[in-house]
Structure formats: structure tokens, C-alpha cells
């Protein structure tokens, strides 16, 4: 079963963190990714650019394109993982290995991905 681990954080604060802290964060991501790959459970991952780089596309006839971000909030959606896990608990275990000091994770089952029912 595929689970999404959605990562939220305050971009402006993480932007103010010293470089060592950033490297530490990066290290945890790499460790999880390697582990998932070794166990053949890695599906995908992405880190998004700052929300100010986004545009919002909505509405039909005419389609409206406005300057993002979609929602003005303290916590932004900053990235995600898709992992293949047997059950919710092992997806939570994966999320716990990510850097939680400055971020929050939402673990959410995937209904379908890549054209297949997950």
C-alpha cells in the first residue's frame, strides 16, 4: 500500500537556520531515502521551491492564473514522499525518521498513483 508523507514547515524560519542545521536535516532525508530504496519501498520524493514561486490556476472559462501562494498561512507545504508500506504503522515509522525539529508530517494513504490503484 502506498502512503504519502506530506511535509509542512515555516519556510521563512527554516530560511533563517544556520547551515549546519540545514546539513543535518538533509542528512536525515538522505538516510531515509537510502533505507527505503534498499528495502524496495521508495516510490517518489520531492522538495518544493518556496511558495512565493508558485502560481495558482483555477476556474473554468476563463481559467484564472494568479500569483501564489495558494493559501497565506504560517505553515507551508514544502515537500512529500511516496512510500510503499505494509501498513499505517510502518509508514509512521518512516515519517518519524525525517527531521521533525522544524517540520510537521502528515501521513496519508494514497488512493491511486501513476495510473494504478495503490
Amino acid at each position, binding site marked *: 500500500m502506498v502512503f504519502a508523507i506530506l511535509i509542512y514547515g515555516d519556510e*521563512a524560519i527554516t530560511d533563517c*537556520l544556520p547551515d549546519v542545521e540545514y546539513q543535518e536535516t538533509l542528512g536525515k532525508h538522505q538516510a531515509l531515502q537510502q533505507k527505503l530504496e534498499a528495502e524496495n519501498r521508495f516510490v517518489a520524493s520531492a522538495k518544493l521551491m*518556496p511558495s512565493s514561486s508558485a502560481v495558482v490556476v483555477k476556474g473554468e472559462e476563463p481559467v484564472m492564473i494568479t500569483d501564489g*501562494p495558494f493559501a497565506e498561512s504560517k505553515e507551508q507545504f514544502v515537500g512529500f514522499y511516496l512510500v510503499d508500506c505494509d501498513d499505517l504503522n510502518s509508514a509512521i515509522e518512516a515519517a518519524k525518521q525525517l527531521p521533525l525539529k522544524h517540520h510537521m508530517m502528515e501521513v496519508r494513504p494514497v488512493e491511486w498513483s501513476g495510473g494504478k490503484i495503490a
Partner: protein
Amino acid sequence: MPDHTHIEACLKEARPRVLATLQRQFNQLELSEDALQEAMCKALEKWPESGFPDNPTAWLITVSRHAAIDIIRRTQKEWSLDQTEFLSDEHVSDQTMKSEPMCLDNAGYRDDILRLLFCCCHPELKPQDQMALALKIICGLSVASIAKMFLSQQKAMEKRITRAKQKAQNLTDGLTLPAGEQRNRRIHSVSNLIYLLFSEGYSKTGGDEHISAPLCAEAIRLARLLLDLFPGEAEVMGLLSLCLLNHARSTARLDESDNLVPLEQQDRSRWQQELISQGIVYRDKALRLNQTGVFQLQACITAEHCIAQRAEHTRWDKILGFYDQLFVLQPSPIIVLNRAVAVAKEIGIDEALSELEQVKTRLSNFLYFHTTSAGLLMQQGKYLQAKEAYLSALDLNPTAQEQQYILEQLKIIEDGARS
């Protein structure tokens, strides 16, 4: 529980918003800064145990406001009790902090922050004073680290900032919240200040350090702040794009022995690709708005360099076109100088040299005019004239790395003359 670095990052991020709100209420820079300082000390004391408040910015505003009132009571006897009473009727408890009816969306205080940023660009302040003031007030850097960035003594920097603050204070006294056209002018002045900071970090004047990455990072942070406040401003996107695209290449601008490497010889694999991608996204987003401007055009030019896999792939025809547009908006001799490099590539070195000739007198005190001319003259085999130009450049306070480069070029000319 939050650790020290996380709290520090949070405080740094909240600083402009808190300070701008305090300024609206008290309109005394010194007082606002001191009050915020006290509140930040309290946060560093409390938050490790209590955890982050629901809204750290609102917490800081409330605590600083009370600190300010205490300072006023202690030091400014002329403030009557009546005046402070209306400010202090609420009791500081965690409860009031939580229920603080603070308007914390960006629209609520973006003009306050803009005003705070704008008062750092007082036209009577020298560019260096403007930069020092912004770093001190908005970024919250210590006087010691600002002094280090500008190769100045701490005492001298302290004095400079105090004087600048006084002038800035006089300016803010008369500043109202802006509307329409006036707001655009303020955004424009602040954008220029941010770019000035970035340029100073990117290519320091004098001294033995050529690039100051921390200064560039502060400038980029300010550009992001400005864009967060005004997310639909094409020129602010252009500014951020330009800073990111230049910053992406800074790693490759110095070799192992800290010598400057000219653009054409840089190892392009050392450019930071993720910063380039980000810069290009902001450029694209800006161009969609069809409001051309100098930052966007400069970002377009820089992007052309960034996307060329090798120096010889650079699309000089595109670059020349952007310079032509830029010159229409900003007919300055500096643009002529930069454009000349594109002219040399796309049309011919003789044409470039004759265009440079036209701005010769106006740029005679500009280091890069002489180094650019010298480079072109070298390519044409006009070594005597090139030598003259390099010698003029040496007199114009080059950084240690620039001086090193010029001396190497002079040696090449001498060796060539001997053989």
C-alpha cells in the same frame, strides 16, 4: 521543546514584523529596538521550557510593547502617566497573549514593514549608511558583524549607525502609510537598497575578501520578505531572480587560492543548479505579468549566462537585445559598459571599443571600465593601451583578488613585449 537554534531562527524571522508594529505605535527607533531586544531575551529564557507560543510574532509584539512602556516610564519623565496608561491597561499573561486580536496576515502590516524598510533609504543617507542601517534594524545583525562586513572599526560603525538612525527617525516622523503610486515608489527605493546590499556582498569594494556570502544571504532574505509582502510585484520577482542567479555562480568565482575566475573560465559544474532553477522560475513568473523593468531585464541577461552549458554556447544576440531594452529604461554609462561586452561578442571588438570611447570621461573613476577596456584591447593585440588601462585600474582601489588578476595580466603583457 524547541532548541536554541530554532528559537533564534524564529526570532530573526519575526523581527521585521514586530519592529514595524512597534514603530507604528511608538515611532522611536531606539526605543523599539531596545524593547524588542528585551522581548527576545525573554523568549530565549521562556520558550525552551514552555514551547513556542501559538503565535510567536504576536507574543513578541505584546511583550515588547510592555517592555517599551517600562522603558518610557523609567527614562522619559515627560511622558505623563495618562499617555502610558492607555497602552498598559492589559495585563501581560499567557492568556492575553493568546487572545491578542492581532492582525497577522501580511496585508495587515505590510505597509508598516515597508515604511520601516523605506526609512533606511533616506536620500540624505550615503549608500553605505543605508546598508548598515538596514542590516542593523531589519536584519538585526550586531554592530561588530556589520563593521566586519564593511571593513570598519566597531566604534566608527557604531557612530555611523547612530547618526543614520537619527536621520531615519526624522524621516519616519513625517511618513504616513502610503497609497497607490507612493507605495510603488517606496517598493522601488527599497528594492534598490536590497540590490545595493547584494552587490556589495557579491563584489566587495576594497579589502582582501572579494565575496561576502553572509551579506548576499541577508539581501536575498530581504528580497524574499519584500516579495512575501507584495507577491504580485513583477520587479520584486525580478530582483529576487537576479540575486539568486548571481548568487548561484558565486561558488565558482574564486579558485582554490581565492583568485577571481572570469565568467568564461568558470567551472560551470560548480554553479548551484537549484538556485539557478529558482531564479529562472521567478523570472518566468515575473515576465508573465508584462510589466518590464530593470531588475527583470538584468535577470534575463544573467539567466542567459546561467543556462549556457559552456561559455561558447552563450546566446549573445539575446543578451544584446536585453541590453538594448535596458538602455531604453536606464540610459546610464554603466549599461553602455556592460553592453559593450555583448557588442564585442556579437558584433565586433572594434565596435565595442568605440562605444566604450563614448563613455570614457564619465567612467574614468570606475574600475571595471578600465579592466573591461583592457581585456578587449588585449584581444585586439593593443598591448600598450591595455597596459595603460590596467594601470589606471590599479589606482582605483581593487580588492586583493582583483589586484592579483590585474598584476597577472600586466605580467603577460610584459612577457609578450620581451619575447
